[in-house]
Each structure stands twice: as structure tokens, then as C-alpha cells.
């Protein structure tokens, strides 16, 4: 850990100003990831701007009929909010699939969007890592990569994005509202996280000094046919090897609209609109779901230890779509897969 100073921001403007003028400054809210990374010398901010007192912890109705979830709403509060449970059960379920009650009590909505990868090498400052120290190499590519990405990797980085919440937000096409020195702007979930390319050190399109204000959930009708299926190495408290957020709008016997996002397989929640379109107007069937899975995974690339993820992702997509179509979402308390 490095020496750092700590400031508690009294207003959004002040918080933004403090960070934007100091490249070594970071916002801190729940701290469940940042403090961890500081202890491991992965993050070494010289200034921490505490934003926990800012008025960003409300969940509000939007004019358009959606919900606006403040950046400081804890994961626990979001997951248990009756409006979210009723209208966006996919989000509630995804949040409950992650972490532990203690972590969900402290972690915030904004912080969850900014979780950093759990790549072993990124976390170990005794090893090279392009994400941690650009240009040093990616030992994961030819090392222990059982948990690593199969889609959208680059020669520079094969890390995955670790959040469960974000996978649901991607499927729900949430919008991230941010404040910066030049005012506010909105970033769609699809554009929020990045693929590693040749700048794996940059996880998101958030600019330095921009602060997440809220996540807006557009009006949606995915309260019946949805599921969040998370597959991992133990039945709870582990990051996803593969996860699938599936949401369907079913009209009679056919699928009117499909949303599908994958976690644990790429540097960002993975969506494929063409694959989703393949489901539109189709009857729900395992065969069709398998075709969609194959299509999504058409460019999947495995490394030494993670070839199983391609097969697992294919199976998970089919299972999740079947769960969603049947209206039998995966329970996050009963660990038995339905």
C-alpha cells in the first residue's frame, strides 16, 4: 500500500474537481475492490476522494417509466428494492448471485460498474501484466488461464470483467449517467466497458475525473421470462466461469424480443445483437437456442486451460434461454439448477 491523502467531498462538483485536476486521485465509495487492490499494490492512488456523503443513494422513477438507481445505492439495497424486484428481477437476481451479504452491504452501484478483473496476474504485482503495467506482457496468455476470456481477447490481455450486476445491466440496456468537468453525459452499457485491444489498462470509457451519478433502467417488460444463470467452481461466493443473463418478451408462442448477455467470458459483458435477432419471431426451442449459442461463440478462442469455457458457455446459453422461456428463473438461494 502507498501513502495517500483522504478528502471527503461535500458536493458532486467538488468531487469531480478534486479528481479531474489530479491524475493520481480516485473516487472511493464502498471500497470493496479499491482497498483490496491498494493492499496488493495494484492501485496506488495518492488521493482518495470519499463520495459516500453525496446525495446519490436514491432509486427514483424516471419520466419515461424506468428507474434511476443512484450510484451510491448499495448492491444490497438495489437487489431488495421492491420496484427492482418487480420490474427488473433479472437485475436483482444477478446482484444476489455475486459476492457475499457483507460485500453487497458495502458495495455500491457505481463501484460495481468499475470492478477490476480477478486475473491472477493482474492481482499479483510480483508478475508482469499489461493491464497493471502496460508493456510488461501477459503471462496469463501462456500461463494459468482457466478463468480467462474466450471472446474479444487481444494479444495484450485475456482478462475478464468480473461483475454479475453489469451482465444484467447490459441485457437490460441500462444507461450510465456521469458527471464530468464539462457537465453530464450518458453512456450506454454497451459502450461503457471496453475490450482490451492494445490498451488493456483502460477498463471503461469513463474519463478521468468523471463520476458515475446513476444507472438508468429503461422501461422494460422482462419481468416474467428472464434468468440469471451463473456457473462457478463452488456453489456460492466465487466469480463466474460463465454467466448468462437472458430476458425474453414472449408474445403468444413466439419470442418478440430477446436480450442475452454473457459474463465471465470477455473483458466486458458480452452481447451480440445479431444473435438476439435470430430469436425474434421464433418459437422457443432447444435447437434454436443451440444455434444462437453457436453463433455467439463463433469466434471464441481458447487458451491452454479454458477450452472448457466455450463448451460451458454454449450449454449455459441454452439452459438460460430455456429457463427464461419457461418462466422458471434460476433461484439464487436454492443452488439447484432448475
Amino acid at each position: 500500500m502507498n501513502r495517500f491523502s483522504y478528502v471527503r467531498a461535500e458536493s458532486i462538483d467538488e468531487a469531480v474537481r478534486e479528481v479531474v485536476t489530479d491524475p493520481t486521485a480516485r473516487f472511493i465509495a464502498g471500497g470493496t475492490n479499491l482497498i483490496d487492490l491498494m493492499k496488493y499494490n495494484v492501485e496506488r492512488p495518492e488521493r482518495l476522494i470519499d463520495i459516500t456523503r453525496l446525495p446519490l443513494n436514491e432509486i427514483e422513477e424516471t419520466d419515461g417509466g424506468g428507474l434511476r438507481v443512484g450510484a451510491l445505492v448499495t448492491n444490497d439495497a438495489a437487489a431488495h428494492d421492491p420496484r427492482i424486484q418487480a420490474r427488473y428481477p433479472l437485475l436483482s437476481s444477478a446482484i444476489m448471485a455475486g459476492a457475499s451479504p457483507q460485500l453487497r452491504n458495502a458495495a455500491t452501484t457505481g463501484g460495481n460498474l468499475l470492478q477490476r478483473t480477478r486475473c491472477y496476474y493482474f492481482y499479483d504485482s510480483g508478475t508482469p501484466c499489461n493491464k497493471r503495467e502496460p508493456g510488461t506482457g501477459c503471462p496469463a496468455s501462456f500461463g494459468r488461464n482457466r478463468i480467462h476470456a474466450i471472446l474479444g481477447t487481444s494479444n495484450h490481455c485475456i482478462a475478464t470483467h468480473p461483475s454479475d450486476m453489469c451482465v444484467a445491466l447490459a441485457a437490460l440496456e441500462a444507461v450510465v449517467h456521469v458527471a464530468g468537468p464539462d457537465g453530464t453525459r450518458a453512456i450506454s452499457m454497451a459502450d461503457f466497458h471496453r475490450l482490451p485491444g492494445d490498451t488493456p489498462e483502460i477498463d471503461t470509457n469513463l474519463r478521468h475525473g468523471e463520476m458515475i451519478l446513476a444507472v438508468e433502467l429503461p422501461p422494460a417488460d422482462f419481468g416474467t421470462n428472464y434468468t440469471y444463470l451463473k456457473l462457478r467452481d463452488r456453489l456460492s461466493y466465487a466469480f463466474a466461469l460463465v454467466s448468462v443473463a437472458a430476458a425474453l418478451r414472449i408474445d403468444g408462442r413466439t419470442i418478440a424480443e430477446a436480450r442475452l448477455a454473457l459474463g465471465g467470458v470477455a473483458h466486458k459483458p458480452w452481447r451480440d445483437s445479431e444473435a438476439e435477432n435470430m430469436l425474434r419471431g421464433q418459437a422457443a426451442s432447444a435447437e434454436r437456442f443451440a444455434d444462437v449459442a453457436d453463433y455467439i461463440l463463433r469466434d471464441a478462442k481458447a487458451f491452454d486451460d479454458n477450452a472448457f469455457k466455450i463448451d460451458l458457455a454454449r450449454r449455459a446459453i441454452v439452459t438460460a434461454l430455456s429457463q427464461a422461456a419457461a418462466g422458471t428463473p434460476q433461484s439464487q438461494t436454492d443452488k439447484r439448477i432448475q
Partner: protein
Amino acid sequence: MLQANGYIGVPQNRVDGRAKVTGAAQYAAEFDAPNLAYGIVVSSAIAKGRITSIDASAALAVPGVIQVFTHENRSRTAWFDRSYRDETAPPGSPFRPLYDDAVVYSGQPVALVVAEEYEIAACAASLVQIEYETDTHLTDIDLAKNEAYAPPRKRSGVKEPPSPRGDAEEAFVQAPVKIHHEYRVAIEHHNPMEPHASTVIYQEGGKLVIHDKTQGAQNSQSYVASVFGLSSDDVQVVAPFVGGAFGSGLRPQYQLFLAVMAALELKRSIRVVLTRDQMFTFGYRPLTIQTISLGAGPDGKLQSIMHDAIQTTSPWEDYQEVVVNWSNLLYHCDNVKLTYKLAQVDTYTPIDMRAPGAAIGVTAIETAMDELAYATGIDPIELRLRNYTETDEANKKGFTSKELRACYQIGAERFGWSKRNPEPRSMRDGRELVGWGMATGVWEAIMQKTAARAVLTQDGKLEVSSATADIGTGTYTILTQIAADTLGVNMEDVTARIGDSSLPKSPVQGGSWTAASAGSAVQTACQTVREKLFKYARQMDDSPLANASIEQVTFANGKILLTNDPSSSVTFAQAMQAGGVDRIEAEEKASPSLQTSMSYSGYSHSAVFAEVRVDEGLGIVRVTRIVNAVAAGTILNPKTARSQILGGVVFGIGMALEEESMLDHNLGRFMNHSLAEYHVPVNADIYDIDVIFVSEHEDKLNPMGVKGVGEIGVVGTAAAIGNAIYHATGKRIRDYPITIDKLLK
């Protein structure tokens, strides 16, 4: 004789339970001292090579930093290897922290930064700049195994494989049914909840009081004294509580060395706590390649057993454990060949981990036996009964007791084994395939020479003490029970003191031997107090016991009474008054019986039954039911003993499905060094665990008939689960842990 209040054999709450749940119990890193300084260890980034430079200037420039210790400025310590050998050390040259510029494994401590505050030390540690010249390392057992060798010097206390009997190779060739496979269990790290820590309190005159995370206070004490050339009177190690260890606290670890060195150099108190990732920078359960060949007749009777193991060790020590001997110990066979070899890899030396050797060796043989059951079409229990042995054939000895048959029978009944359709994939519940499997468990019943003291005072309070440890097993409680029953006092009137090097001599707590060893020592010391007390009681004027012998009296409720006439009694206080003493003290040793060990072998046994549910489509396994029937002689405290078996079973579930320390062979480094990525079972992974203690009369090992239960619970559990997965899916996975990727193959 132990019936007085009848505490023994009856479930008792932990006497230290309240202290533990209220936080009153203090662990090594929780002891405070005036003017305490804090040390943070800097770990090497490379696996092998040389340190070419260390630049500590930036670290030293941080306000509050006191010193940065490296090999360049360390203090002089003992010269000879023997000074560094602790009581559990394997043969070789023990690792010496900060000894020279050589890096011999990844994560090796290369500097200790000491500061006024923990955070300052942590900050400064990140600023120490170290340059290395790297050498080629080797951490892959599959490359190292070609150079494997039978250890030339045997490790004390570890039985080597017995000489071959019969002609196992020829018998295998001739056998109508053959099983021949390789089995692996991944490297595991102990990962106790409490990380290793040492708080060294520097007292005036240079005397050290050390709170160390250790399974043996005296082992740490003698190590510190011999390494640093101190009189043992000047080193006291006090470790009343240990937050789990599983073997990782058997050997004095490098944080102890570093903390003591810094305390002596700086002449002040210091605390060094390892981080969770540093908990992966010393001993581990070694990776072992096991090859088993079983030859049998169509009737399932074994005609040949061959079991070969190659196991990793470090280049500087020949770690050894008993891996292959169990195959013949469990089953009758006339043609047996067992071999055990070591392969050197550039990691730290492995350290015993709960049921060392047996946990992995029995996993292999019990998986192979399940394969034989399927190859011959014989029920797995019936197969084991057909090959049952009443003798330790390798050593031509009988068993002190062996109720394994009863374990099979009682466990099978409880589990409902008779309803099992042996056909793989024959049971299904919704998406899940259901499988039932079983395996045998075995662990040696060991007793070690141990001393204890008992002090009875006039107020009726009894204190018993020994330098043994309680690593969470319940030692405090069972010693209290034994003392209370021996002297006929209430448990509330007994205080047990352990975990202090100044107490009567005890070996480390390990090998499941503490209940038998420290328990017998406490019992013996209390018996001596009892005899003295009785002598005083008889001497009392007009004593109602004047003509009685000690066999004719009962000690109960602080009184000695005539068994045939309980109205005739003398209180302890009266007896002590008559003797003119206000306290009665006795120190005694208890030793294993040489006569017994020459004629008999002592082991605990178990039969483990597992039910799994496998989502074959997604490779997800749930262990929904375990029945573990254990025969381990006298069970002193069924409550804490059950907890030991529960913990052992959870350990076994981890071995079966989750635990694996992943080495990156390019870097020579363990990579998943956190509890987020090194998976141990969580609550959601644990369903029903049913523990049965099978009645077993044991009268040869020690007077109480105790065998110990700390380790038997893990042995066999992983195999039972693997066998259940085969029954569920028809897939035989011989490489533990059985993870999603292996199930999907």
C-alpha cells in the same frame, strides 16, 4: 475409574467457547506490547536466481520506517543446519530466511521492513527495489519425476514402504481382472483462517516472550533459542489459541525468525503478520502422482497390489509422508509392491497437511477399489469385506482394535446403501443424475511421550497444564473433562492451561495424537494427586477411610467416599488440612507402551458414504449427503469429536471438488494465492453430514483407549465423492479436484 462425574464420553460444550465467540481469546497477532513495531515481509518475485541489488533507500526515507533487514545486514545466526531443525523437520538443510543472495523459490522472504506503524511498514515494503539475476527453475513434477529418487534418509516418525512380498508383478500379469491407472490430487495449501503471525515482546534484559502462531510452543521456543544462540530461559513462547493450522503451524515459519531477529537487533517488541498471499509462500500438501495396479480374481479377491507414488519436495529437504502403505494395510494380499519416491521442484518444502499421505494415498486406493468393484461386478462394500484383513500384514502384527466391519455395516444402514442400484446413471432427479459412492478411511492411532502437571488447591480448584496446543480441536475441553473425572470435581472447578513453552514438555499438536498423549499425561498427573490426597485422608484423625484401600473409595464432588458406604467420607479440604498442605501438585509423563507397539498396530478406521447430484449438462456437482461411520476407540467428547469429523469431511469435499493451488510453471509461482481464487467449500456447498461413532473397545494403546479424531474425517471422503460421481455419471475422474472442466470432457 473414570466414571466419577461421567464427563468423559458425554457431549460437552467447549470450555473456551465463550472466550472465542466474545473475542476474549487472544491470537498471536492480537497481543499488544508497549512501543510495538511492525514488520512487513517483502517476497521474491522470481523462483530461482540471485539478488543482485537491493535498494531500500526509498523505503528508509518514509517517515516512521525503522529498518529494512535483508541478507546484507541481517544479524548472525547459528552456523549448523541442526540448529535450524525443528522437531518435525524432514531430513535436509532447513531454509534460512535472509541467509544470502540466493533465491530458491518464488515468494521467498527477501526483506523485512520494520516501522512504527503497520501501514507505514506496508507502504515502505512496496518501495524496496530488488534486482535479480534469474536462473532456470523447475516446478513441474512431470518434468522433475524423471529424476525421482527414494529418499536416502528417512524422516523420523514416517514409516517407509514395507519390503515387497510375494511377486506382485507376476501376479498382476496372471490376474484375470486388472485395474491399472494413474491418480492425482492437486497441491493444496492449508489456509487456516488465522494467518501466520508472531508478536515478539522484548523484555528488559533481552528476554523474549513470543506469541507465535504455532502447533507447538516448545518447538518454536527451541528453534528460536538454537538459531539465535539464546538460553531457553530467555525465550518463552505463549500461544494459548490457534485460529486453525491443519499442519501449517507444525514448523516454525519464517515470520517467527524475522520477528525475533528484528526484535533482538532493535531491542524492541515487534509483530510480523503474513498476508494471505504470503500464506502461499511456505509449506503445502505436495502434488503426488500415484500409479496403482490391482490384480484380482473374478471373485474380487486381490492377487496383486502395486502402488507407486512420486511426490514433490524442495531441493533442500526430503519431505516425506506415508502415501502408499495404506493399500496393503487395508486389504489382504500376498503379492504386494509399494514404492515411494521424491521429485525435487523449486518450491518451499511441503508441510504435513491434515492426514498427510493418507488423505491422498487412500483417495487413490479407494478410487481404484471402486473401479475393481465395477470390473468384477461386486458391490463395493462386499468387495472390501472379501479382502478384509485382521492383521497388519506388512508388519505381521495384529490390530489393537479394528471395528471397520461395523463401520461398513452401520454406515451402510444409515445411508440406505442396500437400496443402491449399482448401475451407473441409474438414478435421476429432474436435471440431476444422482450417485452413491463409498470409501474406506484409515489413520494411525499415535501416542507421543507427553508431560502434564496437576495442582489441586484447598479451595477445591484443580489446574492441569501441559505445553500442548489447541488448534481448534477441543484440547482444553477434553483435558478438563479428564481431570474432572479423575479427581471427582466439577468441570467448572478445573482450569486447563496449554500453549505455553514454560509448561510441562509436550510435542507439537499433530497426528491426531494429542487426546491420547496430553490426555493420558493429565490423567496420570491427576492420579498421582489423587493418591497423595487419599494418603492424607487416611492419615486424618479418626479417618473413616483409615482401613480402606484406594480401590475401595470413590472421588466425587470434592470428597473421597467409601464406595460401599457413601456416608463415610472425607472432603478434599479435610484431607489437605490433615496433611498440612494447601496444595497438592504432581507432574507426570505418559508414554506409549513399547509392549503394545511391538505386538500390535493401532489405527482408527471409517466408512464414508456420499450422495452426489450432478447436473451433467453444466458440470455442477452438489454433495447432498455424507455419512461417515468412524471407529476411533474411546470418544472423549462426542460433541467436539463430531466437529472434528465434520471439519474433516468438509476438508474432503474441498479435496474432491475445489481445492487446487495452481502453479504457473513459466514463473514458478503459485498464482491463485487468495481465498477468492483458491476455493475451499462455503456454506452453500455443504448439505447433510451425518457422523456416527462406532463403538470400539480399545484397551492396548493407552488406558483411556483413545485413538484421536483430528484427521480420520478427511480420509476417504474425496474418494467416496469421486466414486459417487462415477455412479451418477459413468465418468471416472482420477485427477482431483473434480471440477467443471473435467466433468465436461
